[in-house]
């Protein structure tokens, strides 16, 4: 191999140095933008592959509720293990302990440099736990520290002689749907991407405490399950990712689901409130093909599609922030970062609803109304967002995620070495930049194909006619190709700060 000798003169002026705006919460990006030719190949593949599922699966109408599954609770030792109080209770205690460590490290720990809070919240939990939820399953309903704390508070209240539950059980206004979660999630996206102090430990602790107040109050006022399903942004978010996951929880006894607005009796999949209430014999923990959960018919709550669109836009915004185009937009228009966080979801929503309407014009309305179409198709775009998020973040998780190994030994930055790992240095170069390029493009193209397949099965479910479903899919294909190519385009952009 030819060896080049590179020499460069570098001049460093510390006085002129300004602190760089850090993208995604905190920490550097390790990836080199994908080269133009690879971007073009990826885009071409997205267009060509879009039609393959359509050609292969367009024949018959199928019930999206029917798919192969395997009940893990059918294996006696696994059932025993997964239901053991020791394991479940231990995980819940661990979750609350980690939450408290974040808050304490944020409040009293070292504010610059070594601190557990930023890495745990932005890398381990936000990126790592999201990936886990999408690729393995949704453990958030079990681990959610606010839900655990609320349970403990209730147990304590009962023990000291409080006869009533802590829940006031005020009726939840039906029209609110999941709009409170949409609003809170939007605030979170702003904090992650726009707020310049998002990686300052003290701010993280204060945000966590503020959100704790909102969540505990919501659970006490409207009832725990009601708030978790409508207002707790992370329960709704991880619930959405969990629909992609290759595992599901299911309740066999329809009686459990009476009065639940998250599922239909007899078709109770990933409705965690019902799962919790159900008797052990009525529970299933199934393996299933990935992403089928996104195609399931569900009771659409007001704000449901909006939440999905806000997630899609948030993921894109995160990448867009680092592109030269965005800098130009900031420079030439009155748009600011904060305005961008709010406008991009609106733009996405407008484009999305336009394409849904086109799809209905071409395929006919069927029995379902516009709202039902809009609610159902939104889910089919989620695999593209998950794939993009993984492409965008996986090297970051691999490298920056290693920091947690040393931080766990010295969470406050006070020079402790609790587990003897404080001196651990992260290893770079686990994956080469060439591999990163190909895997990023492959991930996005795979996400795209899954999305096309999902949209098609949703259209068959809603329209009940292969011919009309086929016609209705043409606008959706254009929409998906647009979204996929936008995602690839962002990965191909030079990163600016």
């Amino acid at each position: 191999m030819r060896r080049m000798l590179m020499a460069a003169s570098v001049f460093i002026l510390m006085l002129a140095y300004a602190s760089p705006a850090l993208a995604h919460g905190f920490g550097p990006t390790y990836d080199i933008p994908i080269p133009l030719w690879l971007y073009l190949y990826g885009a071409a593949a997205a267009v060509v592959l879009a039609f393959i599922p359509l050609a292969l699966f367009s024949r018959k109408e199928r019930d999206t509720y029917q798919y192969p599954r395997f009940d893990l609770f059918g294996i006696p030792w696994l059932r025993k293990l997964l239901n053991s109080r020791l394991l479940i209770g231990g995980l819940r205690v661990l979750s609350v302990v980690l939450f408290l460590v974040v808050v304490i490290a944020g409040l009293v720990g070292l504010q610059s440099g070594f601190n557990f809070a930023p890495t745990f919240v932005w890398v381990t939990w936000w990126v790592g736990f999201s990936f886990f939820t999408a690729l393995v399953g949704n453990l958030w309903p079990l681990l959610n520290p606010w839900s655990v704390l609320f349970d403990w508070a209730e147990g304590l209240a009962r023990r000291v002689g409080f006869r009533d539950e802590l829940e006031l059980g005020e009726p939840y206004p039906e029209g609110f749907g999941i709009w409170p979660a949409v609003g809170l999630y939007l605030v979170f996206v702003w904090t992650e991407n726009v707020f310049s102090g998002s990686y300052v430990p003290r701010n993280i602790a204060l945000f966590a405490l503020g959100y704790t107040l909102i969540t505990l109050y919501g659970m006490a006022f409207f009832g725990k399950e009601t708030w978790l399903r409508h207002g707790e942004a992370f329960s709704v978010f991880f619930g959405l990712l969990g629909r992609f996951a290759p595992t599901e929880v299911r309740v066999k006894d329809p009686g459990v689901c009476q009065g639940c607005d998250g599922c239909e009796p007899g078709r109770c999949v990933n409705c965690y409130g019902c799962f919790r209430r159900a008797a052990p014999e009525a529970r299933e923990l199934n393996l299933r093909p990935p992403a089928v959960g996104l195609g399931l018919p569900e009771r659409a709550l007001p704000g449901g599609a909006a939440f999905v669109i806000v997630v899609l836009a948030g993921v894109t915004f995160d990448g867009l922030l680092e592109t030269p185009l965005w800098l130009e937009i900031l420079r030439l228009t009155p748009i600011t970062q904060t305005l961008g966080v709010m406008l991009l979801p609106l733009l996405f929503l407008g484009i999305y609803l336009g394409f849904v309407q086109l799809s209905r014009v071409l395929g006919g309305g069927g029995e379902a109304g516009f709202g039902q179409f809009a609610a159902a198709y939104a889910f089919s775009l989620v695999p593209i967002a998950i794939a993009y998020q993984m492409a965008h973040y996986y090297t970051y998780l691999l490298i920056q995620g290693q920091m947690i190994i040393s931080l766990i030994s010295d969470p406050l930055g006070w020079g402790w070495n609790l587990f003897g790992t404080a001196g651990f240095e992260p290893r770079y170069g686990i994956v080469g930049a060439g591999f990163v390029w190909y895997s990023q493009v492959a991930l996005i193209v795979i996400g795209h194909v899954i999305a096309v397949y999902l949209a098609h099965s949703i259209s068959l479910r809603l329209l009940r006619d292969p011919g009309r479903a086929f016609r209705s899919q043409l606008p959706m294909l254009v929409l998906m190709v647009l979204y996929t190519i936008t995602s690839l385009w962002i990965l191909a952009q030079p990163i600016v700060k």
Partner: protein
Amino acid sequence: MSPDEISVDEGDTVTLRVSTDKPMELHVHGYDAEQEVEPGQEAKLHFKADLTGRFEIEDHESEKEIGLLQVRPR
């Protein structure tokens, strides 16, 4: 840092000639390349670019990022 970003190809042998207006300890992330730099003197930082990707160049004295090294795969 001027230039903001240094771009090299995988396998290159890189020499950075560094001058500064303040004493600092230069460190290239991912590479164990470290060099103390004093104002008024030119310091040399020498390493082989065998890891691909984007790496921060930082000053260990102030813990601040001052630039980027980009190593493109061959």
